[in-house]
Structure formats: structure tokens, C-alpha cells
């Protein structure tokens, strides 16, 4: 199999090459990092529901929609991507695709551990270190290929991420930033000096060769470049970005596996709730402007479905 260690590339290239490989029915491992920041929507995310477009426009943060699943992510040069594309009939690919995640994620787990981060696999597709998420991963069928993608977080811009997601009120935005900070971790939390791209790319290449067999260095050829350009146009086109997506009754952001920040209405006012595995960890009542707020300790520890909320019927 070929290894495309393409270094820092433009934001759209950091997504387009794996789409191109899969579309062409070719296999390979891509290691890369974007040289600038962007927002990446999952295939079924609803742009207007999920993203604060004014914030992105003001900061000139471009937006792309990938063909793999999962939610909105903020990606920048402090993240190093590993992307594996297999043909759909590859014998290494288990019949139930999700079973491949622990195999695919063994490489970043070893890389994180090498960097001093005690990463572990958390099904179905997260990596965690001491309970905090350190990597999100996604997968999907593209053409006749299957793509698995994820990233090593050297550092993470919690401020920008919590501001670019659509928030119904200021309490929600504040809770978003805080809960991400409390439930995510990056290499920068475990080391004073960040490793270089080359160091991490070398480790990833070594680990993937243990899983996939010998990797030969590949270069972006004309076919791949042309197809990637086609995907750039598709994945960033207004029609593709604005296509209808998954709507939720209440505002809902997934922070990590099993952890969600909800916003919605009670019978008389509004609420913001941080919910882990269905159980309320924090609950705030707020007025319609999102200004005055009251923390309701009595709801902590209760299942969200037992609270008197509009969404609960």
C-alpha cells in the first residue's frame, strides 16, 4: 500500500485527497496537516443549524463538508491528520465496518503514548486519555472505497470552536467552551514542547506499516490531483454546503462520546443542560434573552428524560 506523507497542505487539500483516492478505487494512507484553519461539516450536518456563519465570515474561516459521518469540527495547523482508504472488497475490512476502528486507531494510540499521552480506545471511534477525548474519528463509503479519518490533537482552539458553533444564548456558548475544555485533552496538556509534524508523521507511518504491511512512499500524481480538485469544488460548493441536514428539536452539540450539551425550553422558560450518558451533570434555567440564569442543583444526577422539558413531551 502507498503512503502519502504530504505535510502541510491547504485546508481543502487536507480533505480532498482521501476523497479522491476512494473515488478512484485506490488505496493508501495519507498523513497531512492543514496550513490554515477551517470548519468541516459531517455529511449530514445542517449548516445553518450548526454553524455561526457570521462568526466564520468575520474571521474568514472557510467551510467544507466531507463525505464521512460525525459532527462539525474545527480543524487547524495544530492537528495532524491520518486518513486510510481501503477498497470496499479489501480482505482486511471487516464485514461490519465499525469493527475496523480499533485496528485503525491502534496507530494513533501508539503515537499518543509515544508522546506521553496515555491514550486508549473508547468505542465506537474516540480516543481518550484519563477520560478526556483526545481524538475524534469518522468513516464512510466514498465511491468504491472506504475512508477512515482522524487526527492527532497537538493543541486545540477551544475559544474558536465554541464560538463558531451556533449557540442559542450566551450561557450555552459559555458551557460549550467549558465542557470542551473539561472533557478534551491534547498533546500540549502532557508536554511542554510540541513535537514536529515530521516526528509525528514518522511515528504514524511506522505504526500503520505494522497494521497494514510495508508502505511505499507515494506522490500525488496527476490523476489524484485532478480528482482532488474536482472534490474541492464539490465539497465547498454553496449547494453542497447548504444541502438539507439532520435537524434536532433542541440545540444539541456532542462534546465527546456520550456527552452532549442540550438547550431547549421548559414549560415556562429556557434551559441549558450538560448530559453524560443520559444523566444530567449541570442544569441551568435561563430567561428568553439568555441573561438571567439559575443553576438547578436538584436536577443533577437525574435522567434528562425525567425532567419537565418540552422535548420530553
Amino acid at each position, binding site marked *: 500500500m502507498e503512503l502519502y506523507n504530504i505535510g502541510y497542505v491547504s485546508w481543502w487539500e487536507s480533505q480532498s485527497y482521501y476523497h479522491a483516492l476512494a473515488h478512484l478505487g485506490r488505496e493508501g494512507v495519507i498523513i497531512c496537516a492543514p496550513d490554515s484553519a477551517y470548519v468541516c461539516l459531517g*455529511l*449530514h450536518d445542517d449548516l445553518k443549524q450548526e454553524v455561526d456563519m457570521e462568526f466564520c465570515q468575520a474571521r474568514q474561516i472557510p467551510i467544507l463538508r466531507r463525505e464521512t*459521518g460525525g459532527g462539525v469540527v474545527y480543524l487547524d495547523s495544530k492537528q495532524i491528520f491520518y486518513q486510510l482508504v481501503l477498497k470496499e472488497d479489501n480482505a482486511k475490512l*471487516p*464485514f461490519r465496518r465499525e469493527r475496523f476502528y480499533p*485496528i485503525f486507531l491502534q496507530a494513533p494510540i501508539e503515537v499518543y503514548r509515544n508522546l506521553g499521552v496515555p491514550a486508549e480506545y473508547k468505542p465506537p471511534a474516540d480516543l481518550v486519555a484519563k477520560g478526556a477525548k483526545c481524538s475524534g474519528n469518522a*468513516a464512510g*463509503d466514498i465511491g468504491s472505497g472506504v475512508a477512515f479519518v482522524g487526527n492527532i490533537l497537538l493543541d486545540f482552539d477551544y475559544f474558536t470552536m465554541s464560538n463558531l458553533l451556533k449557540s442559542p444564548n450566551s450561557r450555552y456558548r459559555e458551557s460549550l467552551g467549558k465542557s470542551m475544555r473539561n472533557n478534551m485533552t491534547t498533546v500540549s496538556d502532557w508536554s511542554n514542547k510540541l513535537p514536529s509534524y515530521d516526528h509525528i508523521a514518522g511515528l504514524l507511518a511506522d505504526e500503520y506499516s505494522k497494521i497494514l504491511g510495508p508502505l511505499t512512499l507515494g506522490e500525488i500524481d496527476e490523476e489524484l490531483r485532478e480528482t482532488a480538485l474536482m472534490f474541492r469544488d464539490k465539497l465547498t460548493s454553496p449547494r453542497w454546503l447548504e444541502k438539507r441536514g*439532520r435537524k434536532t428539536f433542541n440545540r444539541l452539540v456532542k462534546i465527546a462520546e456520550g456527552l452532549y450539551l442540550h438547550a431547549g425550553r421548559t414549560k415556562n422558560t429556557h434551559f441549558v443542560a450538560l448530559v453524560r450518558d443520559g444523566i444530567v451533570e449541570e442544569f441551568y434555567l435561563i430567561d428568553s434573552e439568555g441573561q438571567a440564569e439559575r443553576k438547578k442543583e436538584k436536577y443533577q444526577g437525574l435522567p434528562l428524560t425525567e425532567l419537565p422539558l418540552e422535548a420530553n413531551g
Partner: protein
Amino acid sequence: MERGLEMDRQASNIPENLLYDKENYWVKIEGDVATLGLTDYGQNTIGDILYIELEDLGIPVITRGELGSIEAGKWVGKIYAPLDATIIEENEEVLLKPRIVNQDPYEKGWLLRFKVGDIEQTEALMNSVEYASWVAEQIEKEKEDMCLYE
């Protein structure tokens, strides 16, 4: 339910009056209109379905062209046309509540109806006996996967 027993149940839950493809979709032909849905085995291999997106009505799609996509857990798969097709109706209920497909794949969980482009293409689909045999083969492969990956 133990996974082996669950697999056996799915292998036997294959209605006789339908046609099937290797993507685990069933097709019910009525004149030049077909109804499409995911089989019981298919819905189980995908897992809890979170979202279904279907292509717009009225646009012709060739065999193996994309009729939509399904998201489940950390996976997005495509819905491929088993025949040349033009979607004429979508099951709005499953678009709102996709888990209906998991609960009742052959009745309430149908996905869409399409106008068949070329009825002779149905010859390439499997009948219930052929599909049952194919599912049995897949289940054997899955059992091998379970030894390899668990």
C-alpha cells in the same frame, strides 16, 4: 439476545415475495413501480440508524448510482440503486424517525418507491432462497471476523 442467535433470526427473516441485492436491500416490484427497503440482516449490520437522506424525487439514477445515504454510529454508507430508478415517493416517516427501519424493516421501514427504468434488470436480483443462502455465507464470514477482531 446472543449475537449468534440474532444472526440466525435475521437469516430466517427473509420474506418470499421480495427480491434482494448484495447491499442488503429488498425490492418489491408492482408493475413498473418498485418499493425499496433495507433487509433485517442489513439493518442489523448497520446498527442503530441515526439519519437517512434521500435524493430528490424525479431524477433518474442508474444501477449502482446513489439514491441516498444512511448514518449510523460512526459510519456513513450509501444507498445504491439496485436497478435503474427514478424516485417517485419517499417514506417521510422514516426520514423523521429513522430507527423505524431497525424496528420494522419490511413494513413501516420501507425507504422509497421508484419507477423502474428497465424491468429486465430485476433478473440480476436474488430471490428469497438465493438471498438466504448469501446471508448464510455472510454470517459465516462474520463469525470469522468475530474471531479476528474481538
